[in-house]
């Protein structure tokens, strides 16, 4: 616990803000229309009109990155907040009441975490009908165990503190004690887990899209752009650099921010 925001948090905040700003900007403005394919402008190297060059269909890379960021971040936000909500609810409940239910749920969580994450997501993507929602659901299930575990262990350390007894003595019910008395104390832990979760979700989404299982074309996504750039990596390397750079900067940004928050509060 330190009193000031560290350099880490500041760099993270700037990076995240920049990526977010680019994505939000794409709602109202992109340098070129995103889906427009210009046959005369294929595989152009970066220039002033196309800062990140164009791809093999003649689409402007910067515009595609901006719009792609929108989808990537949206998917990341929805999955992480969704899984945080569900994971927290489960984790807080089993941590507070413990007992047989706790053991049962934790073994299930262990089983889920035993699979490599990406394999698990692949299973869900394969089993569920193909739609844009599929990736959200797959990532949601992928991230629930982590939040469940974090919130349960924090609950275990907090629920035996004296002030919980004070609340009981005042006549507060269990639901109120969990949500009003204990949960606010766990917010710093949840917040840093959320932010680091965001960077993981962006990576996972990029991976799935790279494998062709994520966001479907023509909607641009960073992972997919990387996959498409792979085939002409030597003729048009800028096609891989642009989305790769975006992924790195975003993940790094969220990671720094999460670490910074953790150091500040936990």
């Amino acid at each position, binding site marked *: 616990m330190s009193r000031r925001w560290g350099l880490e948090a500041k760099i993270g905040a700037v990076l995240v803000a920049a990526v977010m700003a680019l994505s939000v900007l794409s709602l109202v403005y992109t340098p070129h229309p995103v889906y427009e394919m210009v046959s005369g402008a294929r595989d152009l190297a970066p220039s002033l009109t196309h800062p990140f060059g164009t791809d093999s269909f003649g689409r402007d890379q910067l515009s595609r990155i901006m719009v792609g960021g929108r989808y990537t971040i949206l998917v990341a936000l929805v999955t992480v907040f969704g899984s945080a909500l569900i994971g927290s609810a489960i984790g807080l409940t089993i941590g507070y009441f*413990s007992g047989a239910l706790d053991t049962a749920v934790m073994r299930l969580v262990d089983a889920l975490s035993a699979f490599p994450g990406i394999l698990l997501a692949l299973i869900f993507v394969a089993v569920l009908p193909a739609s844009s929602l599929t990736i959200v659901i797959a990532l949601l299930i992928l991230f629930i165990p982590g939040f469940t575990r974090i919130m349960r262990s924090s609950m275990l350390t907090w629920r035996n503190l004296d002030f919980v007894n004070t609340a009981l003595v*005042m006549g507060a019910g269990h639901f109120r004690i969990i949500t009003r008395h204990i949960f606010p104390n766990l917010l710093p832990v949840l917040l840093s887990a959320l932010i680091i979760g965001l960077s993981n979700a962006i990576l996972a989404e990029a991976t799935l899209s790279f494998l062709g299982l994520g966001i479907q074309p023509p909607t641009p996504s960073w992972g997919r752009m990387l996959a498409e750039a792979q085939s002409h990596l030597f003729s048009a390397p800028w096609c891989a650099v642009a989305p790769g750079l975006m992924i790195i900067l975003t993940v790094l940004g969220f990671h720094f921010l999460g670490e910074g928050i953790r150091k500040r509060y936990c």
Partner: protein
Amino acid sequence: MRAPASQSLLRVEHLGVGLRQRQRRQKRQHTIRAVEDVSLTVNAGEIVGIVGESGCGKSLTALSVMGLLPAAMELVGGSIVFENERLDQLRERNLNAIRGNRLTMIFQEPMSSLNPLMRIGRQLAEPLVLHGVSTAGAIRERVLEAMGKVGLRDPETLLRAYPHQLSGGMLQRVMIAAAIVCRPRLIIADEPTTALDVTTQAQILRLLRQINQTDQTSILFISHDLGVINQICDQVLVMYAGRIVERGTVGNVLWHPVHEYTKGLIKSIPTRRSKGAPLPSIRGRVPALAEEKAGCAFAPRCPAAHSQCFLEVPDELALSDFHQVNCFLADVESEMEYVRI
């Protein structure tokens, strides 16, 4: 001394608290009891003390009244009646309607007993919110009234403060304010002064006494400090190894103890007169929970124990209406002279 005929507020009868058994099979064998056959009555407006060494079951007795036994413990018998309601049979929801409202508790550690993230104002308002006072104005009025009663000055600043900004003595006042804000009939105080320094301790005791006198609030006061019990209580119960060994009015029990354990406790209080001399102590130690106890639990440490003490558990012997003792060595005749004092 108040007449024992006054209406009883809390009546605990033959209370037993035991270690929760993991397996059914073990239940047939002996259950490990931490509290056994404890009966006590708290009348309206009375302060009743429970005194004993660490681990003798004082706190467990109090916690079972509040329905707050730790997960490893369970009630294994007896009844707890508060204002004509069987607390031990109430459902959680109905118990919550009583807790914090008519029955409340103060803990030992004021520092950790308040939520670090809640402002004092909200923590004081919590019991009111939970028990149906809903308008902000009414809540504020009651909170300020309670703060005034416990002598917290500058309430406006305090309401916005967080617990870490206050001293231990102030926090204990806040705890007491939170306890009395709903005007309870009974406060259970579990060593409320143990964590405080001596001067603050005296102030808190005076405050509790004052609340008892002005509002006729009964207090069940738990302490290991005989001096504190002597200052504040009307009645006192002495517990040893989960059982009550001696009970009665403070004057009878503390000034004319009959049970060897009570005598030992009183002898081991350091006094000015005993300066320089080695402090008397009770030899031996409190038996562990799991130890097989035959006969009087105190017999192995008792200087006057005879063969019967190791074989049978003594029944309660009424030396007078105001003094009962569980000891084979007690003699009814010896007591008679004290009662009239």
